[in-house]
């Protein structure tokens, strides 16, 4: 057992970091919306799903079927990230306008908003399975079947740690995720819009009295959170090269877990939670078998919450500095 762990430690760490980074980017969306609205945006999983398809559209439309190199590769990857981000951010904002805003205006309970979110989630999944995937991607009757992305970049070894190779796509995912985190952190802590978001999260009434347009802030929150999920979708697609209409479900649950693990409402908590979850899953799988991965991650969540009832870093968009 221990021998297995030693043998597999480094590869498990690298994979855990890469996958955890994707969790973290998605978790940001949960955390931001929660911080501002105290709402579990259950449909965020579908925002991610749509991001993967937005990114998928670029190589599909360009007709890419062979691995690319050099500038062409960089161009396509950037385009994919942009397309994924646009698709996700657009979905998130539309979701806010249609499924949440009327409820907010009516002063509905968060429970009602949660059900609206679940309804929207079902709707978006079915919309993609029935209409978008068959028609946009020209796959009649195959809307529910996993769609593969032809290989875009050769997954060559970039460097190795103790004889275990680290691939270029893994590095891309980790670097891009950390970069997005830093950018978001700066946005929230250093810009006016960021101050507006924090103020709204901490005290919405006072924020209005400062001249903050709350509806705009909520829209921005969904836009940014959705955008991050879109980046995650594009990165995921580039690295794992497949997606399907139901892919959001598991990612959604895991990313939500990551957000809570790190401390929901806390942006840095999302990063910590995502990476921790990615690592713990992979380490745990070495001992217990891969089929116990989910059980491991949920058990860890319960354990952490028992000792730190507000997650590893605590809820902070509302209270301390984000």
């Amino acid at each position, binding site marked *: 057992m221990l021998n297995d762990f030693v043998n597999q430690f480094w590869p498990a760490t690298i994979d855990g970091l890469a996958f955890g980074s994707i969790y973290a980017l998605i978790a940001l969306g949960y955390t931001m919306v929660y911080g501002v609205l105290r709402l579990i945006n259950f449909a965020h999983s579908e925002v991610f799903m749509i991001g993967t398809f937005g990114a998928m559209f670029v190589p599909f439309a360009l007709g890419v079927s062979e691995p690319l190199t050099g500038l062409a590769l960089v161009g396509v990857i950037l385009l994919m990230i942009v397309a994924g981000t646009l698709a996700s951010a657009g979905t998130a904002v539309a979701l806010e306008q249609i499924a949440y805003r009327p409820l907010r205006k009516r002063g509905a309970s968060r429970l009602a908003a949660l059900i609206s979110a679940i309804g929207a989630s079902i709707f978006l999944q079915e919309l993609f399975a029935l209409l978008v995937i068959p028609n946009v991607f020209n796959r009649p009757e195959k809307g529910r079947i996993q769609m593969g992305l032809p290989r875009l970049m050769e997954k060559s070894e970039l460097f190795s740690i103790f004889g275990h190779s680290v691939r270029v796509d893994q590095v891309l995912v980790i670097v891009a995720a950390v970069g997005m985190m830093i950018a978001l952190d700066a946005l929230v802590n250093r810009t006016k819009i960021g101050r507006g978001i924090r103020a709204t999260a901490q005290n919405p009434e*006072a924020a209005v009295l400062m001249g903050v347009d709350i509806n705009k802030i909520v829209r921005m929150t969904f836009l940014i959170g959705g955008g991050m999920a879109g980046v995650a979708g594009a990165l995921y697609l580039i690295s794992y090269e497949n997606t399907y209409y139901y892919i959001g479900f598991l990612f959604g649950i895991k990313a939500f877990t990551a957000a809570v693990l790190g401390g929901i409402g806390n942006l840095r908590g999302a990063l910590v939670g995502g990476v921790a979850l990615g690592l713990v899953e992979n380490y745990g799988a070495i001992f217990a078998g891969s089929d116990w991965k989910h059980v491991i991650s949920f058990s860890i969540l319960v354990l952490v919450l028992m000792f730190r009832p507000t997650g590893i870093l605590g809820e902070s968009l509302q209270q301390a500095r984000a």
Partner: protein
Amino acid sequence: MLLEVKDIHVHYGKIAAIKGISVEVNEGEIVTLIGANGAGKTTTLKTISGLRGLTSGSIVFDGQDISKMPGHKRVIAGLGQAPEGRGVFPGMTVHDNLLMGAYTRSGDFAADLAEVYELFPRLAERRTQAGGTMSGGEQQMLAIGRALMAKPKVLLLDEPSMGLAPLMVQQIFSIIEEINRRGTTVLLVEQNAQQALKLAHRAYVLETGKVVKSAPAAELLDDPDVQAAYLGGGLGHEAPEAQA
């Protein structure tokens, strides 16, 4: 007239919280609304700043009907408020809280910050402390300073003395006087009628959602009716029946 509230009615659900209040504030004045708990003072202020919708009546500010204007735009129009319970952003530093006050403005706020720090030296000492960790009096100072950062034409203050030690109350009230002296019109809501009446030029006495008396503040200082208003008795009017 800078601010005119004309016969407003406000409902919470089916319960009428304000049943026709009219208030006028002239430029350069300190006007105070006094009354017992539940008289509708805070609701009036929230309605003026746009946090509550009104069922009927209107609010005219600076010659413009702002009854339907969203709250955040009223700040741009020139209404600044230090809300009930201070509403300090707990996770932001004093400095960031003050910058939030200037949210609607652009340009350089160094001079304004300096003025606030001059008015409240205590805040200058605690520039980098998180708002949530300060004492009540300091938070009140921060709330007022923050409201000033918007360069309001009218400063709305909601119970600035609430929960503060007498010495601190004195200090706050003298700063309010100073703010007014520097040219900002003030609409002050207070439960502490004595203090408020000493400070204000004119006053309105509220009772269960209605104005029962308005007069120059000095005249009301020793008015027995004012005392009665606090104990819930009528001011020569019959008790207003509850509207269901």
